[in-house]
């Protein structure tokens, strides 16, 4: 099995966060009562006509610029014809041969670039709800704008596939085009996978549809890789077909073969005029583009002195990054990052919580606290304790800090106390020198006790080690 190389291409659907739908003014909000966000256009009533929402193109252009694509100056929409009850017109308005963005790439941490063939815009379909033996149709989602990001088959292992998806997810969130919640379906992907031996031409591919979580995608890919290798090893041929992932059995199973593949009979949508994308339109989007994740990460590490892991964690969650950026404009970024990651982030258990980052403290409130610490008015410990209370009640730091807390400890006094600690605890000093590093705690404890907890324990430890020679 090790002899077989894996080749993966991904088609990623991302639901755009525009306020209104792609072809009418109905709202896009998720979770409304069925069929309440609908009009004659959404339900495809005879005689209704689509009006292209320019905001959708702007979002797609933003996604294209963020993934290094060329923006087409002429673009048009096409009809993709197929029959399914959730598709009320029996065609989906999509793009076929003149998509809005072409030829970009996503760069992985290794420096490898996964090329993007194109990004096109299209409308989402409605949703079928099966209940009490009946099937109901909810058209609220019909006409919600999507972009489809189509990669080249440049991905050669499963970890790369995950990294590519995560990079896209983080990027789309940062530029504000989508919340990319796979569990809610606002990001989903179809994977194309084939295997071949080194030096031989690419194998026949299969497509696995509608992956709605990254771990399912990984499991589906690894199952499908093994399956295709087995097929070839047993001397048979991989059949070009569409498969689905069965979450229960963790296997992929055949949906339809190439022979049964739909002929979508694409043709230009006559109800929507060809769009000329002007330089001004693209330039305006480019100049309003927020800092991309890679640039942010670089700035955090190089300018703010954050560790790479810290920087990655902040960048990964758009809301945390926004919060941090706001805070870092007002106060010491490194101290702010310590508090955010050490105190706030650590308390969040689920990915959902981290993504939502709903806390009672504002960036300015945290910045105030950081300033106090930065100016030496409080130490790290008090800062942490205070933040804990702030997170519970949402009040300013001043509400919790006593005058005594704010007196601070001057550095000369700490030096003196450290010297006292060393002089008064010869045994602990000896233990430490003999390799019992735990013994340092007793020396630091002396300083903390003398200052009633106001000294910075970390600073004190460093000073004592300097005195007794580490």
């Amino acid at each position: 099995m090790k002899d077989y190389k894996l080749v993966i291409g991904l088609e990623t659907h991302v639901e755009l966060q525009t306020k209104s739908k792609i072809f009418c003014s109905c709202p896009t909000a998720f979770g409304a009562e069925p069929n309440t966000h609908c009009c004659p256009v959404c339900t495809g009533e005879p005689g209704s006509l689509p009006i292209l929402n320019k905001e959708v193109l702007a979002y797609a252009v933003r996604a294209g610029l963020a993934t290094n694509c060329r923006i087409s100056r002429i673009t048009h929409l096409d009809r993709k014809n197929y029959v399914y009850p959730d598709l009320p017109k029996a065609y989906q308005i999509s793009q076929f041969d003149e998509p809005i963005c072409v030829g970009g790439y996503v760069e992985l941490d290794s420096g490898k670039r996964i090329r993007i063939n194109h990004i096109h815009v299209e409308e989402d379909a409605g949703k079928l709800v099966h209940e009490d033996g009946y099937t109901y149709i909810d058209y609220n989602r019909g006409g919600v704008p999507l972009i489809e990001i189509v990669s080249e088959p440049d991905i050669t292992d499963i970890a790369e596939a995950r990294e590519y998806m995560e990079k896209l997810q983080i990027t789309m969130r940062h530029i504000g085009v989508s919340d990319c919640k796979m569990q809610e379906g606002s990001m989903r992907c179809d994977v194309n996978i084939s295997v071949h031996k080194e030096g031989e031409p690419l194998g026949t591919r299969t497509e696995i549809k509608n992956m709605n979580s990254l771990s399912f995608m990984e499991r589906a890919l690894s199952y499908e890789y093994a399956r295709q290798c087995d097929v070839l090893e047993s001397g048979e041929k991989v059949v070009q077909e569409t498969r689905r992932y069965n979450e229960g059995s963790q296997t992929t199973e055949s949906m339809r073969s190439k022979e049964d593949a739909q002929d979508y009979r694409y043709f230009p949508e006559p109800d929507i005029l060809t769009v000329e994308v002007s330089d001004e339109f693209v330039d305006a989007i480019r100049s309003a583009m927020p800092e991309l994740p890679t640039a942010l990460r670089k700035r955090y590490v190089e300018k703010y002195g954050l560790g790479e892991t810290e920087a990655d964690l902040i960048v990964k969650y758009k809301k945390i990054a926004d919060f941090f950026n706001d805070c870092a404009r007002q106060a010491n970024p490194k101290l702010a990052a310590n508090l955010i990651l050490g105190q706030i982030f650590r308390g969040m258990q689920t990915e959902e919580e981290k993504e939502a980052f709903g806390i009672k403290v504002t960036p300015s409130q945290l910045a105030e606290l950081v300033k106090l610490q930065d100016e030496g008015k409080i130490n790290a410990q008090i800062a942490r304790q205070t933040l804990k209370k702030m997170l519970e009640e949402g009040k300013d730091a001043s509400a919790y800090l006593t005058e005594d807390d704010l007196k601070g400890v001057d550095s000369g006094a700490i030096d003196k106390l450290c010297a006292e600690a060393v002089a008064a605890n010869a045994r602990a000093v000896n233990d430490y020198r003999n390799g019992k590093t735990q013994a340092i705690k007793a020396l630091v404890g002396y300083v903390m006790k003398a200052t009633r907890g106001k000294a910075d324990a970390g600073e004190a430890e460093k000073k004592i080690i300097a005195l007794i020679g580490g």
Partner: protein
Amino acid sequence: MASGKIMRYAAMLRSGEITSVKLTEAYLEKISVLNPEINAYVSVNAEKALASAKEADAMISRGEGYVLTGIPFGIKDNIATKGEETTCCSRILKGYRPTYNATVYERLVERGAVVLGKNNMDEFAMGSSTETSCYGAAYNPHDKGHVPGGSSGGGAAAVAAGLAAYTLGSDTGGSIRQPAAFCGVVGLKPTYGAVSRYGLIAYGSSLDQIGPIASSVEDAAIVFDAIKGADKRDQTSSGGTEPTVDKLDGNVKGLRIGIAEEYFDGISADTLAGVRKAIDFYAGSGAEIVKVSLPMLKDALPVYYIIACAEASSNLGRYDGIRYGYRAARYDDVNDMIMRTRSEGFGREVKRRIMLGTYVLSSGYFDAYYKKALRLRESIVTAFTKIFAECDVLIAPVAPTTAFPVNYTADNMIETYMSDICTVPVNIAGLPAISVPCGKDGKNLPVGMQIIGKKFDELTVLRAAYAYERAGLTDVSLDTGVTL
């Protein structure tokens, strides 16, 4: 000096000589007498008509009326009117009541116009005889042994028989102009985009256009002025609302009229004679007659049938029995339901065009048919643009013959398709054209001529037509109006 009915009615309504209620009652009465023979209407809503007439009278008495206020009209059964059955005369849409109004309908109703009912048509506007309607054929008021043309045959017959002051039709390949010619009335197919298509149930989306059928050029101009202009609900609509009717003066001096001989190939002698006589009138009135050539006209028919059917196959995909209209009574599962609903709901001609359209868009055939048709469409557009550097309008016949006998088209499908040759080029190129009566044939059936103009130059087309009308040459109308 008013040549049409609308101005005359408008004056009478203002002078108090009649009321809209009286006028509407008179039309309803005439419909109840004549419609059973002509079948121009498939539904009539008397109660609603009288209620709007009452409102129109109030508008007029408050001095708020428009020219069209209080004047009754008919509307083709493929134009959406909220809450009222709109079926395209197809079984598959039986019972469908739109939840919204078409823009054209809204624009007329805002002006206090009174709608009488829905006019008969070929199913989904596919046909040239109004014989494929699920409500039965409509008949030509000039001779009930002949068809009124199609697909807007009900609307043309209604105007010819005096069952509406005017009607709104739709024209995808000649569906306003040909029935207007067969029924001896005026039909205007506006520039593609001049009138909003919002609410027009699509047949061929890149070809469809709504326009008026009226008993005079002046009336057609008044209605066109009321319905035209860009609409934010139709992205393909554009153009202004500058009125045309006040610029009709009967003067054609210096007008350059192009004659393309290709339009006159295979035209019956009676029709030729009528159109030639009209051309002589223009020459004698100071217009300049210019010979032009349109060799690509021979491509127009295949291009039209490929594009119209391709778009239709997609547009008609939505009739699946799930949300509205007809649903098969018995089925096994959802796919079976869709299949049976469509098999039972669509008529033969509609099925034929859906299959043709599906075929030309299929992979493997797309390039040879659809793509090639798009390329030829471009060359037809270019040829017209070139010609309009040499002339201001073109004059041509509307159809090779006068009205067909009833039951003729069903057995002569290819010939019927061929008979669209004079009208489809205009739809392919998106141009405006009017059909104006120009005499009668040996069987006393009306002959029509077509005046074709540049994009968005309905004004020149209407002015040219009006000159002919003012000379008293158009009058083949049966319509004696209503007895008031």
